[in-house]
C-alpha cells in the first residue's frame, strides 16, 4: 500500500480544487527561512516522508515558529529526528500556522462497497471517542450535511457555548469533492485529510495522506 509523495498528492488536491493550506516543500535551512518569510510568521513545519506516520511522536513537527532563527532551528531539528528514524526524507513542508477547529475527512476503499467517505472531529474526538460518520460514495451536499449533523460533537462546529459557528459549507464542499475524487480514481486505497482546520470563514486542509493499491 504505497503512499503518494507530496508532489503527487498535491497534484490531485489541486486538480479537484481542494483547499490546501498554502505550503512549500523545502530542502534546506536557507529555503526554510526564505519560505517562512514569504508565508509570514508564525509558520508550522513538518517532515515529508513516506516512512513516518506519527509525525509528532517522531519529533518531526514544529508549530508556532515565530522568527527566522526559530525557522532555521526547527528545520534542522526535524531533519535530525527524521534521520534518527532512518526514514526516507522528501523534505520539510512549511505552512502558515492556522488555528481553528480540527476535523478529519477521509476515504477508504472497502472490498464490498468501494469508496467509503468518513467525517469526524479531529484530535481526541476521533482518537478516543471514535466520533465519526460514514457514507458509501458517491455523496451529494445533502448527504454531506447529514454526515456532519450525525456526529455527537457536531454542536462544536455549530457554535456551542458561545463559540463562533464554523463554515460548515466549506466542510461539505470538501466531503463532496473527496467523494468525486475517489469515484474517479479507483486506484486510491485510502485518503486521510487530517487535520482539516475550519473557522468561521473557511476550511483548510493542513495535512493529506493518500495511499494507492499496489500495482
Amino acid at each position, binding site marked *: *500500500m504505497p*503512499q503518494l509523495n507530496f508532489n503527487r498528492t498535491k497534484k490531485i488536491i489541486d486538480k479537484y480544487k481542494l483547499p490546501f493550506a498554502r505550503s512549500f516543500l523545502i530542502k534546506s535551512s536557507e529555503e526554510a527561512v526564505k519560505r517562512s518569510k514569504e508565508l509570514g510568521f508564525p509558520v508550522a513545519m513538518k517532515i515529508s516522508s513516506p516512512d513516518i*506516520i506519527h509525525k509528532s511522536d517522531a519529533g518531526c513537527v514544529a508549530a508556532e515558529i515565530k522568527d527566522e532563527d526559530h525557522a532555521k532551528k526547527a528545520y534542522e531539528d526535524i531533519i535530525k529526528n527524521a534521520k534518527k528514524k532512518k526514514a526516507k526524507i522528501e523534505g520539510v513542508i512549511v505552512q502558515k500556522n492556522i488555528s481553528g477547529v480540527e476535523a*478529519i475527512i*477521509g*476515504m*477508504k476503499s*472497502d472490498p*464490498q*462497497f*468501494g469508496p*467509503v467517505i*468518513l467525517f*469526524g472531529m479531529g484530535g481526541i474526538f*476521533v482518537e478516543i471517542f*471514535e466520533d*465519526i*460518520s*460514514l*457514507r*458509501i460514495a458517491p455523496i451529494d451536499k445533502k*448527504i454531506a450535511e447529514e454526515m456532519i449533523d450525525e456526529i455527537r460533537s457536531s454542536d462544536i462546529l455549530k457554535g456551542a457555548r458561545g463559540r463562533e459557528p464554523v463554515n460548515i459549507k466549506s466542510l461539505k464542499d470538501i466531503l463532496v469533492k473527496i467523494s468525486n475524487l475517489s469515484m474517479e480514481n479507483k486506484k486510491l*486505497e*485510502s*485518503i*486521510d485529510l*487530517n487535520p482539516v482546520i475550519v473557522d468561521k470563514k473557511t476550511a483548510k486542509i493542513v495535512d493529506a*495522506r493518500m*495511499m494507492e493499491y499496489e500495482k
Partner: protein
Amino acid sequence: MKNNLEKLFKPKSVAVIGASRDPDSVGHGILKNLVRGCVFQAEFCRPFKGRIYAVNPKASSILNTRSFPSIKDIEEDLDLAVIAVPAKIVSSVMKDCAEKKVKAIILISAGFAELGEKGKKLQDEITSIAEKANISLVGPNCLGIIRPSANLNASFAPSMPPEGNIAFVSQSGAIADSIIDWAIENRYGFSNLISYGNKAMLDETDFLEWLDKDEKTKTVALYIEGMKDGRKFMEAAKKVSMKKPIVALKSGMTEKGAKAASSHTGSLAGSYNVYKAAFKQSGVFLASTIEELFDISKALANQPPAKKNSIAIITNGGGCGVLCADYCSKLGVNLPDLKDSTIKKLDKTKKMHPAYSKSNPLDIIGDALPETYEAAVNTLLQEDYISGLIVIQTLQTMTNPEKNAMILIEARKKFPDKPIICTYMGGKFSRKSIFMLEAHKIPDYNDVSKAAKAMKALIERNEQLKK
C-alpha cells in the same frame, strides 16, 4: 437462472435426492417435512399438496412415497429437487438434474466453499452445471426453504411456522432453524423462510428482488454475515425498501477491521460501520439483536407509518407509562403535551378516573375498565396532532384483557392511518388477548422499551417514504 424463482417457491413437484429410511438422517427429515409438513408436529403443519418423489437407489418406497434409483427414472416433469447427498457425488447428481430439466435445486449438502480452496473448486463446478442448465440454485450448505402458504417445507427444519407476511432471509441455517419453534409458540407468521448458505448462485440480493414481487410478503427480515457485492445489494435495497420495509441484523459488530496504522480512515471505517452506513443509505432498518429483528419487522409489516413524530401513550399503570416515556425520549419519539381541548373531551366522556393524569403519558389509573380504555383511545386517536398510540395494559383484578383488545381492534379499523402498538405486560392470563391483537395486526410487545423501538421504526418509515 436468477430471474425465475417462481418454481423454487411455488413448485408443483419436488424430488428429494438422498431421501433415506434412517429417521436420524437429513434426507429422511426433508422428505418427512414435505410429506407431513413437519417432523415436530405443530398446528401449522400441512402436507405438501404437489407431487413428491424420493430418490434413493436402495429403496422402493420411503414414508409411503415412491422411491426411484435416479431422478432420471421419474417420468413426469419436475420443478424442484432438494439434494442431501455427500459432497463428492453432488456434481453427478446435479448433472442428472440438468438432464431431467429440473427448474430449481436446493442444495442442502455441506462440504464446499466453507472448507477452503478445494471445496471452493467443487462449488464452482456445481454452480457452472446449474448455470448452463438454467437451474435456480440455493445453497450449498443451507437449511432450505419454507413457504407456509404453499405448504412447502423443503428443509430439515424441525417444523412449520405459521403463515404470515414477513419473509426471513438468513445466511445462517441455525438462526432460521431456531426461530421456528419460537415462532410456533408465539404465533409469529412468515411468508417465506429462506436459508441460502454459501450462496453459490442465489444471494440476498436475488431473494430481495423476488420478494419485492411476492404478494405474500409485506416486510423482509435479513440476517447477514457478509456480502460479495455491497453496491449491488444497495441498489436492490433502495428500490425494494420504497415498497416494502427491510430490516437487517448484521453479525461481526465487534470486528474492528484491520488496524492498518498507515490509514486513520481505514481503522475507523471497520466493516460493521460500513454496513451500517450502507443500510442507512439504502433504507434498511438495522436491528442489533435477533429479537429486535423480529420485533421491528412485526411493526413494519402490520402497521401504517406514523405520519408525524407525535405519539401518545395510554396506560393503566403509572410506572410503565413513565418508563415508556423515558425510552421514547431516548429514541427521539416525540410525546406532545395534551391540549386543554383534549382534556375537556376526555372529561366529557365521564369515563375518566378523578385522578387520571391529564397529560401524556395518559395514565387512566389501575382500575380502568374497557370503557375507560375505549374513551381514552378514541378521544386521542381523533386528535389531528396525535399520529400514533402506544397502549399499555397491566393486569389487575378488574382488568379485562380481551375486551380491551376488542376496543383496540375496533379503533384500528376506525383509524387505519394511525399506528397502534401494544404492551400487554403479562404472561399466562394475557396470552389469549395478545393473540387476538396480533391476529388483527396489532403488534404486542412484552416490554415498553420494545414498544418504543417499534414506534420509532414506524416514524422513521414515514421519513423514508417522504424522501
